[in-house]
């Protein structure tokens, strides 16, 4: 099954209220965290597997952290494993860990977020997400053209 881009949201409010806790979004057009934190161009990613994205210098993702059924306010960890396959055949692996707090504030801007950078000469990026509560667990891959 392929991962697909679906609904678009232009505010934290609509994104949080219109999707489930743990939903994954591409922040469209953002290539670094600074961009991502000032933009609200969330495109929901449904499913898992291969995701087709337009060619750009980086990609930023966020999770919906509103409305957890297991409560709010307690810090949890999310993890991202980024595997890159370079055009010359090399492989690299990078692991990122971040803290976030599930919230009951529908307009919260403190989203669990991260960006993929350094994709020059990369042909494929694989992402494995996970979180303490298991709601973020999924894997997608992006072919860079």
């Amino acid at each position, binding site marked *: 099954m392929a991962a697909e881009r679906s609904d678009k949201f*232009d*505010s934290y*409010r609509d994104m949080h209220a219109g999707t489930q806790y743990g939903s994954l979004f591409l922040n469209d057009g953002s290539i670094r965290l600074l961009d991502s934190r*000032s*933009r*609200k161009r969330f495109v929901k990613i449904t499913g898992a597997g291969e995701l087709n994205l337009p060619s750009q210098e980086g990609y930023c993702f966020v999770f919906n952290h509103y409305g957890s059924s297991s409560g709010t306010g307690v810090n949890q960890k999310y993890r991202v494993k980024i595997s890159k396959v370079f055009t010359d055949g090399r492989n690299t692996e990078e692991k990122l860990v971040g803290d976030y707090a599930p919230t009951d504030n*529908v*307009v919260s*801007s403190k989203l669990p977020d991260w960006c993929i950078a350094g994709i020059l000469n990369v042909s494929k990026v694989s992402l494995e997400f996970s979180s303490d509560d298991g709601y973020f667990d999924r894997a997608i891959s992006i072919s860079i053209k």
Partner: protein
Amino acid sequence: MDKRLENIRLFFPAEVTGAYVAIQGLLSANGIEKTEYMGYMIFIAVALAAVNAVIYWKFYNTVSPLWQIVLAVGFIIWVGNIDTPRFKDLWMAGLRVELVAPTLLIFYTLITSFFELPKRIENAPKT
């Protein structure tokens, strides 16, 4: 609703309302979407409300703090109505801003219709 919005806009000097609209256009011209830069536009709105107060004090001889508050509130209501999507993520008010902003506009224009607005001093320089 458009007529009410136009009526409330006429409460304020055209330079002040024009400045807000111009900055909105500036954001748009720089690729910033209608729901982004909320904090920046709140700062702009507060700054313009202060400018508005000075203009009313200097050129309309409005020294009453009550009138100044009424005018400042009116300006913020006008901003909320012409830039509604920007404030979707405003704490509390943003939750129903599409409903709250027009409702405030209706009540504001209703209430202020009982009072005569301050008049510009004759021969006052144009702002």
